[in-house]
């Protein structure tokens, strides 16, 4: 008898409003505390899948459950509670940052969760320190470099202390040191995590389990090291290990 999974996706299909179908029946079950890498070629549907995990894309077909709770775009109350549990770092930091200053942006989530005053300030400062952006607190986010925006985007979500952390290519555009620092941060968190990435060594470093999404369906699910050893599988899904790297 296992406990309720953190995330349960069953037979999920989705088409964009222009008629493009991106998901063709996806199944995925993630237990509490697992760290799962979501791999797959460009256009596989990874981002589309991620957007279903807190009801940003309404479930058109199939079902999505977060900690046993059904994600239903029509039920505003339950959506709110789901969104306080699932923190998503978007692939494009420009989609994530909207307040006039970095500090206010990071405060946004915790504020909505009822934090105020000194407690709020402390959360903001911690999150900024974590991603090394303390000096940028009063700068407008859209006046930062791409990599700096990415770091702030990560901080906005970490500040909410979600139960499930979903990251869509968090390491892209980060300089190598920041990339490692982010890995250290993520490893130190004791939460359920889904990470989309094209960086296979990064996936291996952080996640015991990997799934491969390709053409809108799941084509593999297993131990990361096992998957990365399966050359044929990788090749069929436009994945390759970097030259000189071996599992």
């Amino acid at each position, binding site marked *: 008898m296992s406990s309720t999974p953190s995330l349960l996706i069953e*037979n999920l*299909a989705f*088409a964009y*409003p*222009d008629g493009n*179908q991106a998901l*063709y029946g996806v199944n995925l079950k993630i237990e509490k505390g697992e760290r799962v890498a979501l791999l797959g070629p460009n256009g596989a549907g990874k981002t589309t899948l991620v957007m279903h995990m807190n009801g940003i894309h309404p479930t058109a077909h199939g079902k999505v459950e977060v900690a046993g709770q059904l994600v239903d775009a029509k039920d505003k109350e339950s959506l709110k509670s789901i969104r306080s549990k699932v923190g998503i770092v978007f692939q494009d930091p420009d989609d994530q940052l909207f307040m006039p200053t970095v500090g206010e942006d990071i405060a946004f989530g915790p504020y909505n969760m009822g934090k105020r005053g000194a407690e709020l300030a402390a959360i903001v400062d911690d999150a900024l320190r974590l991603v090394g952006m303390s000096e940028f607190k009063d700068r407008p986010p859209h006046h930062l470099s791409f990599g700096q925006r990415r770091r702030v985007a990560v901080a906005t979500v970490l500040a909410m202390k979600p139960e499930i952390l979903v990251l869509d290519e968090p390491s892209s555009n980060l300089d190598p040191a920041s990339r490692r620092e982010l890995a250290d941060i993520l490893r130190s968190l004791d939460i359920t995590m889904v990470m989309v990435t094209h960086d296979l060594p990064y996936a291996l470093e952080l996640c015991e389990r990997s799934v491969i999404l390709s053409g809108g369906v799941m084509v593999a699910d297993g131990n990361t090291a096992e998957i990365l050893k399966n050359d044929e599988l990788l090749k069929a899904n436009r994945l390759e290990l970097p030259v000189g790297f071996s599992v």
Partner: protein
Amino acid sequence: MHIPDGFIDLPTSAVFAAASAGAIAYSLAGARKQLDEKSAPLAGLTAVFIFAVQMLNFPVAAGTSGHLLGGALAAVLVGPYAATLALTVVLLMQGFLFADGGLSAIGLNVFNMGVLGVWGGYAVFLLVRKVLPKNKSSISIAAAAGGLISVPIAAVGFVIQYAIGATATFSVSAVLSAMVGTHILIGIGEAIITALTVGAVMASRSDLVFGWKNETSKLEIRAQK
């Protein structure tokens, strides 16, 4: 089209401000009814877009240029209620932040562009849509017609206000013919841009167009490997 302070006398301004306020109250009630998670930001975005395209000038003829009003466009995209609210917000911001349009004349300007332009344009849109076949390109054509007419309608509003409360000396008929004449030309520009914009939205996000009912597409399920 943005009337400055002192052009129309205070009593007239007050009357039109009251009329605008009524229209806004009506729109608020209407917009609340159709409100879902997305409508406020979408109306906000429409406001931004109108604000932006009012700055995007397009060449009309030999070195002259005009700008969009956006009333019909907004109505077709987000519905007339939200469109009136969006236009009002645009005019408020233009008045308070850019000094474009007098602060004592905001009621007048809202009436012309946010009420007459929006509802007039939307009415024409509905009429034209009714006579055309029910397909995507009809929406653009109907929107173009709405855009074309909305500009001279707004101009007529200006002329009415002029006739009632202006201190200027041009005869009302001269102003009427000049305003309507030039604004029909500008309306052509408005029609083209409205049609192209609505067409562009229809092409890729027809679900966003208020004046169009979307049918949901069928989903295909593939076997998991």
